[in-house]
């Protein structure tokens, strides 16, 4: 049996597959179908300092080879998450990555401070696609200097490894990755959804404006991973349009150490356990000893 385990920030994960933030609820909802501990780690829904009610409907819309969502970051807040859901992961001894966001720099800092170090929390994933309400709503992740400063401040308020999750809607994503690294980021998650919209031609109106996800995103993610890996020496977690284990192979070969599966779970609720199973079978069949050997295999 090939070895699926990977090391992330000095934690051994039993496999390199996680859910993408916001696509596996609070972790408990999937349990009637499969156990969350099937994955290497669970990534929380985006959490904020205070609870957040989110956007009115419609919040989801199908597009060709993908979907657009405008959930608006509905969540119960960090405090309630720790109270109501952390015991569930403790009981399973399950590594957790906490995805969090803020609408101001101070909210990010306060939120990071409120996440008390815990043996199972292996990283804080900062959602940098969030609009900065003090800067006219432009997202935090678009300007290298803003990214460097914000990550630097977050780093000085927590001892937990910090993962910067980047938006693909930028000029040069490697410049942003570089800024995140200089600010002290311990890792990157690439990529978040790509902003998009669709129009109802009968109504002559927008149906939805939001973030696009699903298979149409995969080439954007692969390019981002490849370019950032060349620029910065920190581990990359890949996300964007992964539907099956073959997609994963591309992500590893482009340089990802671990991957996240999002939208695929909506299409097939068993996508994640299938990917883990198929990845192991593939390595066995093709004589690879470890998934680690695949990482960056296409980058020379």
């Amino acid at each position, binding site marked *: 049996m090939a070895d699926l385990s990977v090391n992330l920030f000095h934690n051994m994960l039993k496999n390199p597959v996680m859910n993408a933030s*916001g*696509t*596996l*609820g609070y972790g408990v*909802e*999937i349990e*009637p*179908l499969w156990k969350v501990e099937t994955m290497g780690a669970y990534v929380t*829904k985006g959490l904020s300092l205070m*609870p957040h*009610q*989110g956007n*009115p*409907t*419609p*919040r*989801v*819309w*199908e597009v*060709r*080879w*993908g*979907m657009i*969502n405008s*959930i608006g970051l*509905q969540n*119960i807040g960090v405090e309630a998450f720790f109270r109501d859901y952390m015991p569930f992961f403790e009981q399973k001894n399950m590594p957790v990555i906490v995805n969090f966001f803020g609408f101001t720099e101070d909210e990010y800092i306060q939120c990071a401070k409120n996440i008390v170090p815990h043996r199972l929390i292996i990283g804080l994933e900062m959602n940098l696609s969030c609009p900065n309400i003090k800067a006219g709503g432009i997202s935090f992740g678009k300007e290298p200097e803003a990214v460097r400063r914000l990550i630097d401040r977050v780093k000085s308020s927590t001892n937990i490894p910090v993962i910067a999750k980047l938006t693909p809607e930028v000029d040069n994503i490697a410049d942003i990755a570089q800024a995140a690294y200089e600010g002290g980021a311990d890792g990157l998650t690439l990529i978040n959804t790509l902003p998009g919209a669709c129009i109802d031609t009968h109504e002559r109106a927008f149906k939805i404006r939001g973030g696009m996800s*699903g298979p149409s995103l995969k080439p954007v993610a692969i390019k981002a991973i490849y370019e950032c890996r060349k620029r910065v020496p920190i581990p990359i977690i890949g996300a964007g349009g992964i539907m099956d284990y073959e997609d994963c192979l591309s992500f590893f070969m482009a340089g990802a150490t671990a991957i996240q599966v999002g*939208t695929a*779970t*909506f*299409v*097939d*609720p*068993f996508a994640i356990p299938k990917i883990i199973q198929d990845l192991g079978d593939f390595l066995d069949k093709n004589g690879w000893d470890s998934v680690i050997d695949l990482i960056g295999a296409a980058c020379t």
Partner: protein
Amino acid sequence: MDDIEAKIITNRNIVKDYFLLRLRLARPLGTVVPGQFVMLKIPGNTVFLRRPFSIYDYKRDVMSIMYKVKGSGTLALSNAVKGDSTMVLGPLGRGFNIYNKPNHIVVAGGIGIAGVHLLIKKIKANAHVFYGCTDEKELLLLNDLKMQDKYISTIDGSYGYKGNVIDLFRTRLKDYNARDTQVYACGPEGMLKGLKHALESHRAPCQVLVEERMACGLGLCFGCVKKTLDEKEPYKRVCKEGPVFNLWQICL
């Protein structure tokens, strides 16, 4: 709850845009509560996300849904034929609570009948059904349903009361004492609004099945919410906390 492979037995056009799809499942569905739904994969590979449909009927490994062609997904579904393969995820959500009351009133409009069909089957001896549709032809949607009392309205007046089902319901409401009555409803948002208005002073308890666009059907994405009067967390997931809600707790 399970994700089950299925094959189409029949996909029959009932009338106009309405179809009845019968599926043979590889395994039986678990226990089904009327009002629960499934996420159905649309056969073929042109439609990406699954679509939610109420469980219209089921017996061991045969399940059926009744649907109306609305957009690309249901159009593709209407073109599927006997033998086509699909997947059925369910049963999902919280269905109707059937309380022990003398009067059970069911109000449905159009394709809304699909959401209350199993319920009516279960409480048939006590069911007072108010059904509204466009014209006499659509009464075929009532199919084989047995019920105690049936009140029909058609928009064009070709059968029964001429007008919408809520106006018909209003004419009968005084016959029912709020304490002895439980109302169940499924239909377009406009009908539910009208119902809320009609019951404003009567205040009979009322459970409604609501619809919203979905991605996962499992409570994972928070895409399918309905706004409620809960101040702490107003948006509730239709697929998880619903699709049946207390009429007096949701914003319409």
